[in-house]
């Protein structure tokens, strides 16, 4: 491919994304479906602008690798360990049950046992890309269903390794692996993982510090990409999936102080590559095959989705996922996954499956991916509401115009306190939240809570944002609250914004957007507990209270000082200065108390 055609192709992909995704989003279909449809349109069966789909898919799979890295960054090893039960039970249960069911169907349809098993294993996998993208886009990672879906995906990613080995074994070619080789590759695998763990722990931090000190942003970006790609390739060379490797690297860096910068640098690459991946999947849907034998293809797609759904629902029930989220969990995972493409390709080359059958199944998997966003849309529109006992006219898009002067966005632990205080003082509020579980609970206690994605301005409007006076943002996702603030400022400039900030850095971001009424979420409770501590160390209640007041005032002025300080400085240095300043403040406090003691009150 010459230089010109690379750029020409880039124009086609970018145009497809830029046109299809906003339209899809506007129609409420989500970005994934937009990419997929864009892919179908530019692909060989649409306008035919692009051929050579397979190499694109292979390249774009790197988006999944970056996605897994970002997910890893969010997961501390400790949290991962807490997930071991759902990973094994849900993930294992899903793969085993689904594989058995599909094997049975395959044999009924006349496949040999060996082919049926390979097909079943490949089809039992779900699409990490689609499920995780949808979960993060809807900010559902923290819900029960989201966490469970993630556990299943994690198990599947690990399971890919033995499946790959199994295909080699079941293949017609001489798949018997030499024992010495196996031992050697196991040793290699362990060595590489150990190297990543040790290197990740001891080496990355100093290197990151050196690179951050160059204060050249693009070098930091380059290093972040280098790190992820190198680890992914290293891991792949010993037989693990690249996605697994980057996930591991992410987990190792989860407690690094550079986590947020890494996230910010990798995020756009991930977004674009993942988009490209979805476009490629859309392109690979073989419309010709579909037209040739439409009933066979559709029949297979429907059977696949129905089998997976049934098993997922069963597991969701057993796992105790709340009724309202069982569908969400199942819809997230009911499609075929991108690993199926890889596995089928390998199976063909190993002679374990006929090429014709593999092509058919690739089409089935791609179509099943197309179904997922539609099912999620269906969930958003109908099922989530049904479970909240919402009347039709109260539902997401058509919330009856509320005349309440106050809106609360986010009704978790924080928002509830705010809401209760206002409620107790007779101020009716309109409440928006995106966690169905949270909503059902609050509704039971007579609050008017609505389900919806508060980053959408049309939803805010439907909830009465143009008539309200105050909007109080109590979301726990720092990114999301910034998005909501931007939406409000753009579409409802009259609204006074009150916001919960995660910490100083987050409050700075809000301040930059022009929000001044900010509370850092842990400041007050930290001060309160600190005050209690002072009392238990012998301070009188009043003295402790005064100390806390004094500290609060110093802290607020420190905030102002740091905010006006050079914003280009790296956070690291800002926080180091802050520590120095707190020390100075504490010394000043001490002197003030002593000087007071010498003349007044006795």
């Amino acid at each position, binding site marked *: 491919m010459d230089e010109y055609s690379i750029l020409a192709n880039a124009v086609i992909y970018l145009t497809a994304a830029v046109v299809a995704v906003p339209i899809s989003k506007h129609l409420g279909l989500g970005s994934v479906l937009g990419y997929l449809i864009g892919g179908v349109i530019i692909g060989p069966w649409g306008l035919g602008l692009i051929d050579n789909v397979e190499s694109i898919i292979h390249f774009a799979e790197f988006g999944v690798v970056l996605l897994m890295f970002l997910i890893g960054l969010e997961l501390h090893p400790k949290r991962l360990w807490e997930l071991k039960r759902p990973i094994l039970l849900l993930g294992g249960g899903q793969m085993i049950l689904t594989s058995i069911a599909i094997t049975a169907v395959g044999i009924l349809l006349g496949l040999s046992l060996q082919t049926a098993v390979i097909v079943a294993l490949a089809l039992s996998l779900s699409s990490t890309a689609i499920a995780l993208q949808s979960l993060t886009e809807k900010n559902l990672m923290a819900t029960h269903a989201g966490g469970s879906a993630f556990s299943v995906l994690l198990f599947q990613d690990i399971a890919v390794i033995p499946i790959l080995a199994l295909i080699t074994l079941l293949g017609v070619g001489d798949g018997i692996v030499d024992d010495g080789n196996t031992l050697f590759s196991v040793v290699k695998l362990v060595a590489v993982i150990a190297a990543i763990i040790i290197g990740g722990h001891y080496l990355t931090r100093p290197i990151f510090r050196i690179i951050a000190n160059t204060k050249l942003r693009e070098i930091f970006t380059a290093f972040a990409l280098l790190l992820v790609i190198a680890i992914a390739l290293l891991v792949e060379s010993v037989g693990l999936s690249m996605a697994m490797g980057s996930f591991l690297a992410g987990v190792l860096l989860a407690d690094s102080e550079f986590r947020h910068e890494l996230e910010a640098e990798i995020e756009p690459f991930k977004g674009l590559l993942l988009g490209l991946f979805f476009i490629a999947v859309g392109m690979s849907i073989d419309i010709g095959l579909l037209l040739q034998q439409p009933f066979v293809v559709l029949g297979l797609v429907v059977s696949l989705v129905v089998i997976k759904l049934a098993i997922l629902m069963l597991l969701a029930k057993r796992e105790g996922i709340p009724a309202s989220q069982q569908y969400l969990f199942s819809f997230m995972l009911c499609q075929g996954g991108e690993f199926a493409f890889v596995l089928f390709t390998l199976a063909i080359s190993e002679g374990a499956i006929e090429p014709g059958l593999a092509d058919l199944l690739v089409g089935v998997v791609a179509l099943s991916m197309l179904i997922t966003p539609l099912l999620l849309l269906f969930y958003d529109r109908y099922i989530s509401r049904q479970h909240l006992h919402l009347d039709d006219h109260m539902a997401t898009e058509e919330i009856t115009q509320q005349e309440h002067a106050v809106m609360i966005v986010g009704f978790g632990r924080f928002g509830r306190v705010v809401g209760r205080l206002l409620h107790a003082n007779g101020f009716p509020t309109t409440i928006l939240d995106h966690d169905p579980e949270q909503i059902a609970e609050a509704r039971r206690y007579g609050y008017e809570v609505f389900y919806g994605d508060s980053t959408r301005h049309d939803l805010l409007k439907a909830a009465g944002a143009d008539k309200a006076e105050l909007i109080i943002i109590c979301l726990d996702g720092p990114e999301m609250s910034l998005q909501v603030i931007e939406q409000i400022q753009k579409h409802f400039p009259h609204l006074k914004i009150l916001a919960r900030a995660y910490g100083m850095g987050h409050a700075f971001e809000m301040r930059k957007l022009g929000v001044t009424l900010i509370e850092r979420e842990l400041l007050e409770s930290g001060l309160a507990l600190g005050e209690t501590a002072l009392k238990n160390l*012998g*301070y*009188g*209640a*009043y*003295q*402790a*209270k*005064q100390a806390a007041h004094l500290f609060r005032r110093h802290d607020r002025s420190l905030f102002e000082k740091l905010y006006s300080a050079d914003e280009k400085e790296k956070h690291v240095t800002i926080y180091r200065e802050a520590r120095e300043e707190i020390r100075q403040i504490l010394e000043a406090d001490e002197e003030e108390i002593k000087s007071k*003691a010498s003349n007044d*009150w*006795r």
Partner: protein
Amino acid sequence: MILLQLVHPHMDRSRANRAMLDAISDVPGLLVNDLYEHYPDFYIDRAREQELLCSADLVIFQFPIYWYAAPALLKQWQEMVLLSGFAHGKGGDALQGKRLFTAVTTGQPFESYSGSLSTIDELLSPYCRTAIHCGMKYLPPFVVHNVDAMSDIDIVEQAKRYREQVVTTYEQMHAGTL
């Protein structure tokens, strides 16, 4: 019951008020209510305070004179607790017949509160008026002057005198002579 309303923002640095409190703490029937300890945020629990007042026969306000008056929390207490309908006004007879006196310390000598300057009695007149307005009997205050310059021995001496005044007053009340 004797209700001692202790109003001192810095008991940890107090000499005189501390000694006075120590001297009377074992008087039978005495309940010490440290207002700054209970309400450091100046948000007074009205129900609790009214209940305490109701069960008391004798109420003592003990505080250091500071800027010619009581510490701020005592005024806040009056405003939040002595409501119409409870302490005065229509139906406000909860404090009828109870006794009240103040026990105060000053940092300056007696001479600073005499001559053409306001006397201690004049400075304490709001408490006299308060007691009368609530139907209480206002008794003479216990006053210690010049505690800044006072030796520890003298302070203990004054604290003993305080205890005597509290005990005698209570005994006289029970004997019906006060």
